[in-house]
């Protein structure tokens, strides 16, 4: 076994827990280690109890570990709540000036030391120093990160932080911490990014030029990620008056010729459903990211879930082709955004990207390089492509179902679009032939759209038992498969990114071969499991479900599958 250590930093909202995590993650990343930082925050700005869990490894990690090696408790509540999670050789640091009983708790006056170094605000740096020192990291690593971070800041800031780091380090000298490891000196393994950020980068790389949104956790950070490029790319990010406005703005911008997107969570998506249908019937390409959180209604606004799958598949009255994609990793997230825009454009349909709070807020390492597409296919026609621009018909009946898409006021061709059912020229029609003609035209795209769908990714697909999931749960499932295999079980994993149009044939092939399969989903009813049965007739054996708002731990998946398997064998 190589390096696999988990540090948990907990305290009140506003104490800067995230900063500690950031510092540690950057230090690790800088010397070639892999990290995954998972946030668990309450829906409040100050106080309460929040934490961040950082897993450090010399191999890629894609799920949090249930064992905590180092607990940094910036508040008493943290210690109370999480001390029991410590691994056998684990240790807790507790920010206090008094002594705390228990041999696995070390009292360090973190805040007091920070104050001495120049301000309580640097408690984070003190804590980071202590952690890194315990973990056996050379002092220089944190110093370098601090130098990059505070370079050019007001004089004294860097010095004070270095002092704070030093006192943190000194406070733990002499403590023997078993999980400490030999720190590598490798190049960074990729980019250290959050899911929200990678989605923004994916949109940028896909030439998204307009993003409208109404703030909603956990989607806002995607938009914040894009905002940063507003002055350096042809891009406008606009806060709308509500989600209905956001989606309609996006449709308008796309109609006028720019790639456009919005991002929201379930409640906002609910308000966008009518607009989604408008994009459907007017065949306007748009991209909507729905970053899921537990509901219904306001639910648990800052937690994670995978419970909107069926909703996004069927949202809006009546039926029309759409894409639904749920990225399983950072790399997949970047690629998925590009595909969402490209597919939406190519088929003139809405594309929905399903992520969740765990995906958006976690910081992980994107391993593939981020490349801008050389040239973008927009599938737009101009007068020059037409024999007679005056005879242009936006909704011409074609074999492929895809009609030529011109832009308004771009030439002689009049572009006429209506959310009512229409004639081929775009004017309202209520006749039977036009209705059937347009419905069939829209649905004719499905065959080619199905052809674009990629089969699920798999690990050991020929195993006797398969664990099946989608989106952000993939990382935890994959690791649980490794655990099960290491215990001798013939288990494999199946992870869907492309969900709609459902890759039926691939699913049938893969799932038809195994003896039984388990669904692993973060919802109550095993939504993908239902879809698989609807589309393939194959029924999952059992579902490993979690709906408490927290991400899966690989260990709990493995444990539950093992218990189910033992019940069969026994």
């Amino acid at each position, binding site marked *: 076994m190589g390096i696999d250590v988990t540090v948990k930093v907990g305290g009140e909202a506003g104490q800067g827990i995230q900063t500690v995590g950031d510092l540690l993650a950057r230090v690790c990343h800088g010397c070639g280690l892999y990290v995954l930082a998972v946030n668990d925050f309450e829906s409040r700005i100050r106080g309460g109890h929040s934490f961040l869990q950082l897993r450090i490894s010399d191999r890629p990690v894609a799920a949090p570990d249930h064992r905590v090696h180092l607990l940094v408790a910036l508040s008493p509540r943290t210690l109370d709540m999480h001390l029991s999670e410590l691994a056998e050789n684990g240790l807790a640091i507790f920010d206090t000036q008094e002594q705390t009983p228990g041999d696995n708790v070390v009292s360090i006056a973190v805040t007091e030391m920070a104050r001495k170094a120049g301000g309580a605000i640097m408690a984070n740096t003190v804590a980071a120093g202590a952690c890194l020192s315990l973990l056996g990291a050379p002092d220089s690593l944190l110093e370098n990160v601090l130098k990059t971070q505070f370079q050019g800041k007001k004089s004294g800031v860097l010095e004070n932080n270095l002092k704070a780091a030093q006192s943190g380090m000194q406070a733990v000298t002499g403590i023997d911490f078993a999980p400490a490891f030999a720190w590598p000196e490798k190049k960074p393994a990729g980019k250290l990014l959050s899911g929200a950020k990678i989605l923004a980068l994916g949109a940028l790389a896909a030439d998204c030029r307009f993003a409208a949104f109404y703030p909603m956790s956990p989607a806002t950070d995607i938009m914040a990620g894009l905002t940063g490029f507003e002055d350096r790319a042809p891009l406008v990010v606009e806060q709308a008056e509500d989600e209905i406005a956001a989606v309609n703005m996006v449709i*308008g911008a796309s109609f006028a*010729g720019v790639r456009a997107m919005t991002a929201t969570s379930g409640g906002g998506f609910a308000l966008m459903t*009518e607009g989604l249908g408008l994009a459907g019937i007017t065949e306007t390409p748009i991209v909507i990211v729905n970053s899921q959180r537990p509901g219904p209604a306001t639910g648990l606004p800052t937690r994670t879930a995978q419970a909107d799958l069926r909703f996004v598949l069927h949202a809006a009255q009546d039926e029309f082709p759409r894409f639904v994609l749920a990225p399983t990793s950072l790399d997949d997230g970047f690629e998925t955004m590009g595909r969402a825009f490209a597919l939406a454009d190519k088929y003139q349909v809405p594309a929905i990207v399903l992520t969740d709070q765990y995906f958006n807020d976690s910081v992980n390492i994107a391993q593939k390089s981020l490349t801008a597409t050389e040239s973008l296919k927009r599938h737009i026609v101009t007068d020059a492509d037409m024999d007679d621009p005056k005879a242009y018909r936006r909704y011409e009946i074609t074999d492929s179902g895809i009609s030529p898409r011109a832009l308004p006021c771009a030439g002689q061709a009049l572009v006429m679009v209506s959310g009512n059912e229409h004639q081929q020229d775009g004017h309202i029609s209520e006749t039977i032939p036009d209705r059937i003609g347009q419905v069939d035209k829209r649905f004719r795209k499905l065959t080619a759209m199905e052809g674009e769908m990629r089969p699920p990714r798999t690990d050991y697909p020929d195993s006797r038992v398969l664990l099946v999931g989608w989106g952000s749960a993939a990382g935890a499932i994959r690791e649980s498969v490794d655990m099960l295999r290491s215990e001798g079980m013939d288990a494999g994993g199946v992870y869907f990114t492309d969900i709609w149009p459902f890759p039926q044939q691939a699913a049938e092939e893969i799932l038809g071969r195994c003896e039984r399969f388990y669904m692993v989903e973060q919802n109550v009813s095993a939504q993908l499991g239902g879809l698989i049965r609807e589309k393939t007739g194959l029924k999952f054996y059992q579902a490993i479900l979690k709906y408490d708002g927290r991400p899966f731990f690989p260990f709990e998946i493995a444990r539950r599958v093992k218990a189910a398997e033992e019940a069969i064998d026994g």
Partner: protein
Amino acid sequence: MVDVSDFHCDYENKWCPGCGNFPILDALKQALADQGLAPEDVLMISGIGQAGKTPHFLRCNFFHGLHGRALPLATGVSVANGELPILVSMGDGDCYGEGGNHFLAAIRRNPDMTLLIHDNRVYGLTKGQASPTSERGFVTKIQPMGVRSDPLNPVALALSQGAGFVARAYCGHKEQLAGLISQAMDYKGVSVIDIMQVCVSFNTVNTYDWYKKRVYDINAQGHDTEDWNAAMELVMAGGDRMATGLFYKKDRPCFADRVPGLAESPLAARSYDPARVQVLLDQA
């Protein structure tokens, strides 16, 4: 030269004979011809309702969207391509009912577009329910004891929120209306024209006769369009006379002026530059 007839459209008109939308359409065509615009240069965004059908009866590019949502739709268009001359056609239910929130936001955001509200004080297309501008007591099939709420005052609303071009017109006075539409199109920012429109099928109170007795042209009487207080007074005045014309005009930066660089070249016109994007990706 562009002529009114260039805007004629072969598609069958679906309004009731005698509907006040016909003279509005005439005035609109007149204004477009006066502006020297060709049909292929005109873009109309509309909501759902009888008013929302307007672009089907006019040769032009159009996007006939959702009930209540024409303004955000048009705003998206405007952000993508602020150079397009955008007309927005909505009903009173459309703009002040379902779409009320977007009306507020449009005034705050000030995208460059001309907003025409066909205000017939009733829901026409859905067969005669009360609209936000129906007078209290107005009787409909579904409000048999009369409308309970007080009516919205759209012009006062626009003025109170700092709109920079606020007008009211009457469908029966086509020339005045054509002139106002043309002025509105010249104005940079959102221009609001509440058009008092007769619905011969469902509003038997606010008829041509009813309006004819009441309307008068404030601009003909020398109203100072820079005087906000005077404008507000005219709008709030009770009694039997109804002021029409341009109430208030004031320069305000339009949306494109508020985004650095956007006014220079439309987003839709810029070319894709992978090298530049790559730099940003590399920095991430």
